[in-house]
């Protein structure tokens, strides 16, 4: 897009926030990353990686194949996710209809369901020919990650001024041309942000690849886990983890660059979404909403069904035996559903608070500091691209002595979740921050506000919606997180995904039905929490274009 278009001013590289404030913004998130990511990771590398480990890794046949498969499936999955995600993103961002918030929350649910659970439902819905194929992997990645596009792109889309498109239409552009030349360029930073998260997720994909790809399709992440846990070759795993990061650093570096270059400032307001007025649009919006909901709900319905039909007959045993009563005398599965829900919510609350605090500061720092900010931008994304095994093992050998003897601390699991969630918060906020109108800040200064005050009033206040989007993700990530959790040692109550996985490791009708029932509980809890967070997103004042419909 042409950055010199008159109505769209390019954003200056830095802004006039006092140096001390900028430093403070950078220090807090950097310290968090340094302590809980960089230190454990480098600690592990320093402990186990040596020349022979590197030589062994590169000397082993098949590494090139694994790297190639990892990259192309991730690129393809990301592209497909972006294309498919635009439809539902448009729907929930630009139209007001009954159940819109519920649909938005539902769309996030696939993102957090443990793949081991949904994988089964997914296989059942796929045609046989596609099972255990690369196509199945891509379809599953789209299904799981569409939420990212809906949230991140939809978040910006809902705030794009409608008058730009209207102006294009008045000037004679058809709907397709207006979309291509006005809407898409304006969405580009958000598309890049969503794309880079989807890329990281699919690049480091573990469960989906294992379940749907079959044993011949191996990503670097799968190979790292296999070396570290099955073969006890932690050194080899750490070397592969470095290889994975090096590959990623290139990709992330490129996207960060693109994203910054594409930033334009426009007036972002919460826009009043129209309700479909004509019969045709009403039908179209309704049909689209129902289709999207059906696609999301189908696997969930399959889960719910399998929780009440163990062994092919209707039964409520799985639901009845939660928490109390053994399945047979002496044979108790030890499932405390309420305890697991509470444990999951508690971890999610802590992880969300941490991720939102750190991620918001990081986003503000990235957008207002120059060099340090850029470093932080890339740095905050790295945990998402680092194998969970390496981080888990790194924490184990780093936090092992007073005063940092934190092994087995329950909060360490939440910190692990927060590390995964911070990039989402940053990605949700940055496009909005970068697109903020420069003039506003100057207007505030003209009216007598100090730079700090202007920053507070303009930047920080713009953040309410993107922060909520980020919080949704952090909550979803934490509630559904399984990979990092399993590699961290844990004490106390088990979280839902962990209990589900434990049950699925047992033979018998009841454990299986209970796993399905718990997955339904997980989906329900998450939907409730996300709808709750969505409800917080109501305009607090009468001014501006309120999203709430005015009658």
């Amino acid at each position, binding site marked *: 897009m042409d950055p010199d278009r008159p109505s769209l001013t390019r954003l200056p590289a830095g802004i006039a926030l006092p140096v001390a404030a900028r430093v403070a913004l950078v220090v807090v998130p950097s310290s968090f990353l340094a302590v809980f990511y960089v230190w454990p990771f480098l600690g592990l590398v320093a402990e186990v990686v040596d020349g022979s480990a590197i030589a062994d890794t590169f000397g082993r046949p098949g590494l090139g194949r694994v790297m190639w498969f990892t990259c192309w499936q991730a690129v393809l999955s990301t592209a497909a996710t972006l294309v498919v995600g635009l439809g539902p993103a448009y729907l929930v961002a630009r139209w007001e209809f009954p159940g819109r918030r519920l649909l938005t929350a539902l769309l996030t649910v696939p993102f957090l369901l443990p793949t081991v659970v949904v994988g089964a439902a997914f296989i059942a819905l796929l045609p046989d020919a596609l099972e255990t194929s690369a196509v199945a992997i891509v379809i599953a990645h789209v299904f799981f990650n569409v939420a990212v596009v809906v949230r991140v792109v939809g978040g910006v889309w809902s705030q794009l001024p409608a008058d730009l498109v209207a102006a294009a239409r008045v000037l004679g552009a058809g709907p397709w041309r207006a979309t291509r030349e006005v809407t898409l360029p304006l969405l580009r930073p958000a598309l890049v942000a969503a794309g880079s998260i989807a890329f990281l997720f699919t690049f480091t994909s573990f469960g989906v690849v294992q379940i749907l790809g079959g044993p011949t399709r191996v990503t670097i992440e799968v190979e790292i886990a296999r070396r570290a846990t*099955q073969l006890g070759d932690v050194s080899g795993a750490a070397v592969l983890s470095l290889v994975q990061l090096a590959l990623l650093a290139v990709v992330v570096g490129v996207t960060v660059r693109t994203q910054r270059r594409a930033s334009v400032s426009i007036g972002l307001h919460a826009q009043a979404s129209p309700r479909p007025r004509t019969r045709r649009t009403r039908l179209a919006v309704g049909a689209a909403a129902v289709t999207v909901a059906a696609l999301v709900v189908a696997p969930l319905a399959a889960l719910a069904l399998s929780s009440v039909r163990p062994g092919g007959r209707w039964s409520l045993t799985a639901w009845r035996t939660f928490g109390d009563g053994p399945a047979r005398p002496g044979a108790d599965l*030890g*499932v405390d559903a309420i305890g697991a829900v509470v444990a999951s919510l508690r971890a999610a609350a802590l992880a969300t608070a941490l991720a939102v605090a750190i991620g918001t500061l990081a986003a503000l720092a990235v957008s207002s500091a120059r060099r340090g900010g850029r470093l932080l931008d890339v740095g905050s994304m790295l945990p998402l691209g680092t194998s969970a095994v390496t981080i888990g093992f790194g924490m184990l050998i780093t936090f092992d002595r007073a005063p940092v003897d934190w092994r087995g601390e329950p909060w360490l699991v939440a910190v692990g979740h927060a590390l995964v969630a911070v990039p989402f918060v940053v990605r949700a906020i940055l496009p909005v921050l970068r697109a903020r109108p420069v003039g506003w800040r100057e207007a505030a200064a003209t009216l007598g506000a100090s730079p700090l005050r202007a920053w507070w009033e303009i930047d920080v206040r713009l953040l309410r919606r993107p922060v909520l989007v980020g919080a949704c993700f952090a909550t979803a990530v934490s509630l559904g997180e399984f990979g990092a959790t399993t590699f961290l040692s844990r004490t106390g109550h088990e979280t839902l995904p962990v209990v589900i996985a434990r049950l699925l490791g047992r033979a018998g009708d*009841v454990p299986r039905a209970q796993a399905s029932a718990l997955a339904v509980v997980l989906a329900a809890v998450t939907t409730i929490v996300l709808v709750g967070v969505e409800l917080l997103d109501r305009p607090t004042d009468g001014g501006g274009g309120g999203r709430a419909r005015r009658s």
Partner: protein
Amino acid sequence: MIHRRSTTRLGALALVSVLALVACSDDAADAPTDTTDTTQATDATDEAPVTITLVTYDSFPAEGTSLNDALASFTASTGIEVELVIAGDTGTMVSKAVLTAGNPEGDVMWGVDNTSLSRALPAFEPYTSAEIDALDPALTALVPGGELTPVDFGDVCINTDLEWFTAEGLEPPTTFADLVDPAYADLLTVQNPATSSPGLAFLLATVAEFGADGWQAYWTDLRDNGVEVVDSWTTAYYERFSGSSGDGPSPLVVSYASSPPAEVIFADPPRDDAPTGVMTETCFRQVEFAGVLAGTDHPEQAQRLVDFLASAEFQQEVALNLFVWPARTDVAPPPEFVEFADVVDTPLTVAPEDIETNREVWLDEWTQIVLR
């Protein structure tokens, strides 16, 4: 309008407060579930209460079962509190133990198995349990240095869907040779030994049966007879196997000898006969061990816990909670376990040090033969 808005905001506020409450109620819920009467415990031992940590794998129930009750009774009689740390699956747990050898994350570990035994040994402090004489000597012989104490065993075998074979009018296969017979083509699902521990056990069973130079030819035949490979036990048993509650296409799957009794015990609706059987000639024996982690701050208490884990009181609980057989010869498993589990008279086995030396080479060879 205003009215509606404030109610939804109130609802959201309530939700946030609930979340906050949940987040803040740490103290109440974090109290160990196995807390018992500490005054009584202190009287019993005359010592300040000590908490020791039992590191274990993720299929060990964290709370609420008779296994946890047994641990609580240990605390009641000794005054030693036991905290459970779940360290991941067996492979992950052993890797962690080796990585932290000398400065362990707990005092005692439960669940090291014979396929990872050799690499685990340096992480343990030799200790000969007071209960050693009651344990199966064939199992204790696996650890001549006394670093670990055998606590249970089980067998990985091919399970058969009995109803499927009856319906097809086909005798279920019984031997390795049957599996490469074209009459049984395309019926077997196994796990990838590179990613699954039962998968590895079954590969080791063929190594034990055909020798270090013979198993390759057998797997070539298996491949040609249409063996299906998936990555995990869960996928194999629940998605591909036809004999459990799933409706997969394969009537033969690699699972455990204890899976048929589990199918009865956890059946819904209840049933009196196992829907699945076991090919007892294909079984690889998995033995699990417990031991004192080297570098513990509480060696004496840790040793007492190892003794307890090998005691009759604890051993009688392992069958129905972990679906394994007790290592003690004087503890009888519960009747439903005995009734529905086939006895494996001649399990296959490979020496732990041979597994350690050759595992990676065997896995690479297997991958070349079966997957490429």
